[in-house]
């Protein structure tokens, strides 16, 4: 059982699905993603949090230049990996309600995306990582551009150029780091960690890499592509983008930024934290005013990312752990919420909040599931959102503890995310579910079996993570601790 297998299964599956030229393609895609889920859960089961890098594949790619193809899973990879593998079957299943043209291509691209994402989260050598990073972009671009809404061509093109621009900056930085390694060179992450670059160089590398990650997540002010792309994409693509792909950026902070350029990471931490907090407040305020429910969720996602990034830049173990668990929680919640929005849109042909109302009268079961997801996203205790946000806020306050007034201030501003989150999510929930039944909602039906099969497991996960967070925190704890032990002495 190795990491490479987890990349190859969806890759081969996608090639098979491409050749199934009818509606059976989706069944096959679902089966393959469930097989992958089985493998993934087995890996998580076998995973030893204290064991460092496991399930390794260390292949040589271009041996004459020391470029390897090194995959492996450690405590930092395991959470985003679990997220990718857990969420994909539900993304596929959630698409069953719509009949997409050319289903073989559609579902094949989703599986291809999964293969690339697993690659990003397990790659331990820089060029393999870059390969998967770009490899994840192509399928999601086509998903969004072919099956998207009216303005899809313009919007997705902007998204594409924007992210590739970031990637090229990243490529230059990675090539630079590679060139700094001792003779015959190496592109291993572990070798990059030990480079000990001087402060100026670290600054350049930091910005080269950080801009690429910031565009992907996105962080204010690199977010302008995001709301449009999320809104115009077909819902499964939106789920991939917000549920998993933005975690590529956050995960990369742990693996490819913090230990590689610790000094610059520390020097810029205040600036980045401010950007992140501006983003989280700004995103939340816009979300409160949105009428378009899909757009509302897009901004809420933008806002949540801000908190995670702010937490990572505190160098506090609780916050780094919080961001880990929040990645998983946010991925699960956002997939569920986008699915609910998609169901509403499919049945009412509108995403306008003011046209909706009274859905609960026709669909009480949906209301319950929606409520669980919504509360998870808001961060109510005993749901998954609570654990992550609590840890993150805790870390942010702790980071500035020697200046209590500032610590309380920044904690309060960051804490606004909870309050604003409650405001816009409750507004969405109330507006759509309660009140008088509106005209468009007249024919609304209760969710059917396959829809329940998407939402129920997600809701179970929301509660499970809320009640037993330690199950997940344990997975990454030693790795995060090791990371900080490594980084903190190197800050100066």
């Amino acid at each position, binding site marked *: 059982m190795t990491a490479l297998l987890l990349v190859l299964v969806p890759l081969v599956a996608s090639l098979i699905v491409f050749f199934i030229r009818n509606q059976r393609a989706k069944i096959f895609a679902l089966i393959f993603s469930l097989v992958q889920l089985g493998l993934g859960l087995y890996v998580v089961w076998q995973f030893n949090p204290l064991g460092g890098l496991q399930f390794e594949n260390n292949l*040589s*790619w*271009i*041996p*004459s*230049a020391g470029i390897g193809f090194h995959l492996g899973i450690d405590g930092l990879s395991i959470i985003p990996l679990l997220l990718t593998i857990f969420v994909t079957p539900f993304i596929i299943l959630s698409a069953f309600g719509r009949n997409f043209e050319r289903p073989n291509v559609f579902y094949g691209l989703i599986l291809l995306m999964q293969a690339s994402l697993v690659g990003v989260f397990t790659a331990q050598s820089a*060029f393999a990582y*870059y*390969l998967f990073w*770009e*490899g994840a972009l*192509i399928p999601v671009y*086509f998903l969004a*551009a*072919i099956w998207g809404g009216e303005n*899809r*061509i313009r919007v997705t*093109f902007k998204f*594409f*150029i924007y992210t*590739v*621009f970031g990637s*090229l*900056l990243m*490529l*230059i930085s990675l*090539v*630079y780091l*590679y*060139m700094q390694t001792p003779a015959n060179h190496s592109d291993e992450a572990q070798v990059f960690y030990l480079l000990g670059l001087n402060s100026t160089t670290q600054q350049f590398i930091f910005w080269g890499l950080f801009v690429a990650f910031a565009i992907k997540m996105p962080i204010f002010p690199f977010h302008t592509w995001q709301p449009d792309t999320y809104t115009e994409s077909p819902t499964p693509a939106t789920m991939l983008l917000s549920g998993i792909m933005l975690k590529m950026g956050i995960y990369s902070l742990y693996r490819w930024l913090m230990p590689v350029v610790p000094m610059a990471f520390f020097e810029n931490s205040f600036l980045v934290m401010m950007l992140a907090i501006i983003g989280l407040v700004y995103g939340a305020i816009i979300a409160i005013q949105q009428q378009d429910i899909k757009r509302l969720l897009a901004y809420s996602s933008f806002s949540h990312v801000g908190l995670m990034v702010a937490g990572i830049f505190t160098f506090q173990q609780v916050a780094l752990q919080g961001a880990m668990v929040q990645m998983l929680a946010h991925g699960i919640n956002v997939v569920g919420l986008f699915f609910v929005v998609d169901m509403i849109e499919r049945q009412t042909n509108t995403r306008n909040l003011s046209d909706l109302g009274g859905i609960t009268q026709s669909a009480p079961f949906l209301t319950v599931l929606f409520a669980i997801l919504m509360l998870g996203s808001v961060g109510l205790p005993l749901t998954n959102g609570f654990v992550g946000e609590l840890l993150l806020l805790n870390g942010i306050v702790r980071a500035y503890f020697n200046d209590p007034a500032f610590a309380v201030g920044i904690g309060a501003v960051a804490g606004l995310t909870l309050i604003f989150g409650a405001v816009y999510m409750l507004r969405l929930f109330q507006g759509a579910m309660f009140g008088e039944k509106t005209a468009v909602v007249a024919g609304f039906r209760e969710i059917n079996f396959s829809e329940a099969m998407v939402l129920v497991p997600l809701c179970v996960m929301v509660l499970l993570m809320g009640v037993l967070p330690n199950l997940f925190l344990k997975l990454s704890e030693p790795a995060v601790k090791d990371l900080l032990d490594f980084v903190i002495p190197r800050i100066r």
Partner: protein
Amino acid sequence: MLSIFLLSVFGIANLFLGFLKNRQVLFVSAVVFLLLTFVANLVEWSKPLDLGSIINNAMMTTDKTSVLFTAILLGTAFLIIPLSQNYIQDKEAQPAEYYAILLFSLVGAVMMVSYENLLMLFVGVELLSIAMYVLAGANKRNLRSNEAAMKYFLQGAFATGIFLFGIALLYGATGAFSLSGIEKYVAATQTPSPMLYLGLMFVLIGMLFKVSVAPFHFWTPDVYDGSPTLFTAFMATIVKTAGFAAMFKLLSTSFAPTYNYWQLSLSIVAALTLVVGNVTAVYQQSFKRMMAYSSISHAGYLLLAVTAFNERSLSAILFYSLSYSLATVSAFGVLMLVSAKIKNEEYSSFNGLAKQNPFLAIVMTIAMLSLAGIPLTAGFLGKLWIFISAFERGLYWVMVLAALMSAVGLYYYFRVIIAMYLKEPHNRNQDIKIEVTTPYIFALLLTTLLTILFGLMPNLFFGLIP
């Protein structure tokens, strides 16, 4: 070396086969001849054959590098020939002559990668160029084709003059035509005569013209656009590969000690080429013209590798020319089929191609991704290698510029992809099902698979580089 003899003989043989009046025989014979030459070239991989006076007089050498370049050239030609199948059915076409000229031009190209004496380089350049002048005007009844041939010839002749003048000056300064003779002079003399620098400059200008580097690129768009697409593909791949191989050989042997003299000017020219090629390509409405500017921009990347001038440069140039040639052949191959049906070479002629002809659309997509340097294609690794070699030399500013320009490149390459997948065909009623014959499928499948294969397993090729 063997390939030069074989190509010359086969070229003449093909001319005589023209008497048979059977075009299919010509086509098959050209393919077979190229295949034989390709194999014969590989025979010399481990040990060059002793072929008498040419070697003995140090006019040419065969080593692993030249065998690899020759293999790329012959392989590219081998992939282009199948694309000629529809073209030669045209009443006006004269396939016997075309194939013979193509084979003769390859003689010139092989000379350019294995020369040891500047005179042989000159002969090689001329053989290749004169063949190209003729082929650019192959479409006799077409005004644009005539214009292309005329422009190419006039400007090319001028560049050749400068090139030859440069060789004369080098001879004046060093008293030698051979690479080793010049090298000896350069290494021994502390203050070389100004004639040497002037000569080098003139020779470089001549070479840069042939590979269409800015500011010597003005002929490129018109010539590429006006020539029959088949020969445009030939020009864009063979001439470029041979030209860069020759330039690198000249600079890396004889003129290595004068690196400081030519390094700055070449890096400025590379930067200029990258900007001109990429930025102008953005404004094109015609796909073929875009490809012309894109070929200028790729010349910029290759020149960056030449300028970096270290042990990685050679592998970068080899790999980049390979990946570029494969993708360019794919792109022009699809263009030929589409434009034959739609009678138009604009981006819009690709609208909706993915629905009617998914095979062609996928071939084109992978070619565009490779040209744009997206991972999993050979183009990405080629670019990566050039970046690495430029980094090693410390050419940061050109490299950052090159990276930014490849972001610009994405814009125009993706316009084709967008047209194919996302736009509706102009005329829904019109059936634009394009008939793809077996030779086409063979060539396009091969270019596409090789692009992906080398993108995934570059070591198959890197392992060969000495």
